[in-house]
């Protein structure tokens, strides 16, 4: 599988692909709100696991899993390690001392370098949040037709021009991925030494110009093509029914999100002194799970 194929949508047979664009976007927005609202690492982990299960159900290919795993590891571990090392809030519990404060120069400069327990936990929470969004974002990206999302946005009365601009980015992902590889190859071919000819990283700073020029040209052609095929024609546009089952599913998800956000708000209000005794079960539940 090439880098281009990685970003191409799956075949139309997948159930995830067949979902209405509105359902996909509704799930994405809802989970995004949940990921921001929830602070409990276990609940966040459950939410993250849920998105992984969706990947399994959508039969994400092994190659895509590999790429996904790499991105996850980079995000999750990067976040945990950086927070563990540089956690600035108090209280903080040092687990391991990497550089003693007495160590010449470095110790004096940094006041010592430690791995903090609270930093690991905070990093894990932030990492899980970004992993949830990465997981769901990739799932939708790999299983969506740009046209489908465009219809969804337009059905929600977003201006067709703005909707088109938003979705064009998705349409160009496979092209952009493949052309980045092409540009790097071309730059390697422009090199006149054996080392430069074999290196990829050395050429990365130069990929922007040719890529940008190509993208502008391509975007213009695509815009001309969809305009002349009547995309911005509003008078005759049909309204598409949201499939009943999907609508019910989305309503439940939205309800869960509203309840979660509401309980979080009342919990935070209680911490500020606005305590209502009748809501103590909600406070307990929120403290335990959210």
């Amino acid at each position: 599988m090439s880098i281009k194929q990685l970003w191409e949508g799956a075949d139309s047979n997948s159930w995830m692909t067949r979902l209405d664009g509105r359902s996909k976007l509704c799930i994405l927005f809802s989970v995004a709100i949940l990921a921001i609202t929830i602070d409990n690492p276990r609940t966040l982990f459950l939410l993250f696991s849920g998105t992984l299960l969706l990947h399994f159900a959508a039969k994400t290919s092994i190659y895509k899993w590999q790429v996904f795993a790499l991105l996850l590891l980079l995000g999750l571990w990067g976040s945990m390690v950086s927070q563990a090392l540089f956690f600035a809030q108090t209280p903080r519990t040092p687990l391991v001392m990497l550089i003693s404060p007495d160590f010449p120069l470095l110790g004096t400069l940094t006041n010592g370098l430690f791995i903090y327990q609270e930093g690991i936990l905070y990093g894990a929470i932030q990492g899980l949040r970004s992993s949830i969004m990465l997981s769901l974002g990739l799932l939708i990206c790999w299983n969506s037709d740009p046209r489908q999302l465009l219809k969804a946005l337009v059905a929600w009365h977003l201006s067709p021009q703005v909707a088109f601009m938003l979705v064009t980015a998705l349409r160009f992902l496979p092209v952009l991925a493949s052309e980045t590889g092409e540009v790097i190859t071309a730059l390697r071919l422009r090199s006149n030494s054996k080392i430069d000819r074999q290196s990829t990283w050395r050429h990365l700073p130069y990929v922007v110009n040719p890529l940008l020029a190509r993208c502008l040209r391509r975007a213009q052609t695509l815009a001309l093509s969809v305009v002349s095929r009547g995309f911005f024609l509003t008078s005759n546009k049909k309204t598409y029914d949201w499939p009943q089952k999907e609508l019910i599913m989305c309503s439940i998800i939205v309800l869960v999100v509203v309840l979660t956000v509401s309980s979080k708000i009342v919990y935070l209000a209680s911490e500020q002194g606005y305590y209502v005794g009748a809501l103590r079960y909600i406070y307990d539940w929120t403290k335990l799970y959210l």
Partner: protein
Amino acid sequence: MSTNMLSIKDVSYCYTGRKISTLKNISLNIHKQEMILIAGRTGCGKSTLIKIINGLLLGNGGGKFTGEVTSKGFNILTLTPEEMGLLVGTVYQSPDDQLFAMTVEDEVGFVLENHGVDNEIIKKDVKETLNRVGLSGFEKRSIHALSGGQRQRLALASVLINKPQILILDEPVSQMNPAGVREFLDLLKELNEEDGITIIVVEHRVHELAKYFPRLIMMYEGEIIYDGDINAAWSKVGDEIKYGLREPQNVKLCRNLALSNLTSKTDEVINLIKNECFVDTAKCNSILEKRERKVVLEAKGLSYCYPGAHSNTLNDINFTLYQGETVALMGYNGAGKSTMFNLIAGLTDLTAGKLRLLGGKVTDNAHKLGFLRQDPDLMLLADTVTKEIYWHNKNLDDAKIIELMKHLDLADKAEDFPLALSKGQRLRVVLAALLARQPKLLLLDEPTTGQDQQSLLDIKNIIRAYTAKEGTVFFCTHDVELAAEIADRVFLMGEGKLIAQGTPQEVLTNKDLLLAGGLSIPPMLKISEGINIAQCVTVEEVSRHVHKAIMGRSR
């Protein structure tokens, strides 16, 4: 043929921020069921004219428009671009850039969905349209799983379903091999004859398309310099190099032999030669010059299999390239030509076999060759032409660079932004950057694709000058005429194998080989057979056997 579909009267168009109008006082009438070919040099205003015809520049194009465009008596300025889409359908140059959906049926049905057509009707129309363009059964296929030719047909179907009365295609066959070009043009002709659609094609490959299009519109610097019968065009605008019209070989031969009529039709040329010339039927075999030459590249038992593929893309390839020669690599799209170039350039590793470049391993010497990829735009990265040439070439001799820029006609563009230059100029900038390093071997992957006649001549001259200085050129092309003219040898590929290698006279005169390689039969071969002389592939070869019988005829 007489019903007027679209009338353009005295139209001029000047883009915002430009001082000179891109279109100047254009007037033309487009009739029902016409087949029109629009040609002209890069930047002459063809694309702007297309946008005028399909209404995308009218009213809200952002520039200054004057004149009148009417269809059946009413001013099309009153139509929205979407409504214009019902009158005119446009297929752009690269199908990849205009396809939007994920599956074939969704792509084709897109326009009808936008017009609020019922689902059942959309399904029926999609099926019919796909059947029409030869993509029946591809409904559920991902658009990414289609070949280049199939994607071009899909782009056509996505416009055709709207039943436009005029169909415009911008360089639709520029990347196709001759067999693909023939199939696609046959399809267009069928649509024109059976469905009555007016077809307008913008293309540089006039020499190949001439027989399909009775009417030619030639543009030059924003003006129409010729509009009429394509066969009459050769005598009126054909010999002016500045117009960039690429004549069919038959016309070139007529011109070369000073025949009484310039025609692209093979039978007519044969009759003219028989009636007006003396034909020397003595067969003399061309003698291949044998010289002791240094080996530049040697391939033995070369095989390559893409990771995850079930069969080899290249199979047991053997050949040798010598210093100072020009070799053309030809064959079907997907025959393995680009893969071979990637192996030579060290971009991929061999699966089996041996490849020796400049006497050593490819990994050690790949940086000593110059490789022009199919899309030279991707190789441009600097802000000025001068910086582009000096990029990674800091130790170059300034005097040599100035000479090189003069030679490639880039001296006055030294401070220009490379990506803002014309297509031919962009190609020359990349070539200059490659040549500045004085490579021993130059790999050119389809260097003439989408280039106008002037750029084609420039490329030929660059190749000749480079090989004269003992450089070796290995180039990939579908252009039989180009290969016959400049190649010392031709390699023909088919299904991952080298099915023939020899002089152009040996390879390009073998009809079975040409068929196997997806190439067209050179017109000069038909002519040479028709007048019973030794088999020829170039105009010069035929001219050696044919002499003017009547002295003193003016050209």
